[in-house]
């Protein structure tokens, strides 16, 4: 963090140069040069978010509107990505699909993070709870996350909310483990012990001394959870265990295109490209954040 603030300062204080070739880069260009992954990932993500938010402005078609006359049309100017087997405009469905994927990704990242942080702090501070919580997470973590999500969506009514809850539960244990590990190591730090010795109450120690120091690894982990959640959502929809089929999630569009994919490969590949780019953006952002926030972590995974 320090490195990039100084970068900002020196960049801003540079006197304007008369010679084009020698002109120093502006603060933004410098920052981008130092953190290309964050810039690319963040940029792509902002673009996707804009597409999702501005969907009604980008396309005038309703993604759910079926026009039987226009079934299975190939791409044209009227229907950029053609129409699907029910006569719905695929361009509109893909554009609106960005909303579902981003919503699932962010919602899961937030919910799994909040739950994971709570669980991690409790088990990091309370011995008796730690044993129980760790046994439960051991159990949850020995079920492959996608299967766990499948199990949970299979017993609930198909809805985007249930998909979000299911993936959050499947992703939560890893976050809990991470936070617990960080808390355990922070607890032994002199400043935390000093605060304890000075009689600071536990909630204040957690808020003031523990949480701020867990923020960097939590943020990085949260971006990876976001990426994993978007892929899991797509796989769930793809195999028919995800959002209801009338909801235009990218997984659902791919799943519907499956039946005719050899004749109309674009019905599968267009949503697939959007999905892959979005997940890539989030992963790039995560890698960039990891390197920027903690250079030591760059050596790990």
């Amino acid at each position, binding site marked *: 963090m320090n490195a990039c603030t100084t970068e900002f300062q020196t960049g801003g204080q540079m006197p304007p140069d008369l010679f084009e070739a020698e002109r120093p880069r502006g603060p933004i260009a410098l920052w981008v040069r130092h953190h290309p992954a964050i810039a690319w990932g963040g940029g792509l993500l902002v673009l996707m978010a804009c597409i999702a938010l501005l969907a009604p402005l980008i396309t005038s078609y309703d993604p759910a509107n079926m026009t039987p006359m226009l079934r299975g049309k190939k791409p044209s100017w009227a229907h950029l990505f053609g129409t699907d087997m029910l006569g719905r405009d695929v361009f509109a469905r893909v554009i609106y699909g960005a909303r579902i994927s981003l919503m699932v990704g962010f919602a899961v990242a937030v919910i799994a993070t909040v739950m994971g942080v709570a669980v991690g702090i409790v088990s990091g501070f309370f011995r008796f709870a730690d044993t129980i919580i760790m046994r439960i997470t051991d159990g949850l973590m020995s079920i492959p996350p996608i299967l766990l999500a499948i199990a949970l969506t299979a017993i609930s009514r198909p809805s985007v909310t249930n998909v979000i809850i299911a993936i959050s539960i499947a992703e939560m244990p890893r976050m809990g483990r991470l936070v617990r590990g960080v808390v355990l190591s922070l607890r032994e730090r002199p400043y935390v012990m000093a605060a304890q010795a000075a009689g600071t109450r536990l909630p204040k120690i957690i808020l003031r001394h523990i949480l701020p120091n867990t923020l960097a690894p939590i943020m990085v982990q949260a971006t990876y959870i976001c990426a994993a959640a978007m892929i899991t959502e797509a*796989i769930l929809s793809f195999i028919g265990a995800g959002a209801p089929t009338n909801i235009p999630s990218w997984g659902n569009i791919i799943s519907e295109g499956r039946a005719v994919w050899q004749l109309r490969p674009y019905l599968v590949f267009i949503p*697939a490209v959007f999905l892959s780019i979005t*997940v890539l953006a989030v992963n790039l952002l995560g890698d960039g954040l990891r390197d920027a926030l903690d250079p030591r972590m760059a050596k790990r995974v």
Partner: protein
Amino acid sequence: MLLNAILKRLLATVPVLLGVALFVFSLLYIIPGDPAALIAGDTATPEEIARIRSSLGLDRSFWVRFAEWLLQILHGELGTSIFSGMSVSHLIGQRLGPTLSLMSLTLVVAIVVAVPMGVLAAWKQGTMLDRLTMMGAVFGFSVPVFVVGYLLAYVFAVELSWLPVQGYRPLSDGIWEWLRHLILPSVALGGIYIALIARITRTAMLEVLSQDYVRTAKAKGLGQMNILFRHALKNAAVPVVTVIGIGVALLIGGAVATESVFSIPGLGRLTVDAILRRDYPIIQGVILFFSMVYLLVNLVVDMLYVILDPRIRY
């Protein structure tokens, strides 16, 4: 000594397995709808439904049923499918071959590709090769397995017709037929796994390559390949093997989607069909089975530590 360690680890797995079993059992317990009413059909009277309930033992307490269910499992019986009335263990046994073939071939492909990739990337750290490998890894993490599957199938099966688009042949049909049908699925499924292993191999190798004994080996005039693969890789093996074990979870999850793409009649297809028909005993059985496999794989990995790094003792 080693036997002792294995026993200890096996015992430590028991409570975890119990936890998984409890979770999987509660799944069936809390599902919406009454299985007795489902079996009895639409025209059944409440008395008939009650009779079926008690004959199925559904009227007893949660823990009694859980204990009975556990006993059943210990006898290798995972219940019966609601849809086909067949035994779940039998169905799993039937579908095991294709999934095991797919997963083991993927495992081999991934290790053979990813480990040398990671080693070379670490050796040539900072070069174009290293950057390309790391970029490839980010892509591997980002492109979902079924997308890679369709892409490969489109290029190599539909357009070039080099390999079959879908289907599966058992090994008894000949090794070439078996392999031909599994190449595309394994490469598709292996993508994310290769990314994971290559990345961890590179990181572990970078750590090792900066050690004194590597410099000594160089000073002795040992060949580069000898240093990399015999001296360095051996010492970097523990994290690599660990991630191979953990990554099996990705393999299992990915197999469900891959089998759908390539119409492979394995456990993944069984699960997907069960989801569509809400056949909960099958879903339960498959999850329990896969979790056991996953735990077992990681148990083996833990055992490997002792062999790979004699300093580790349990």
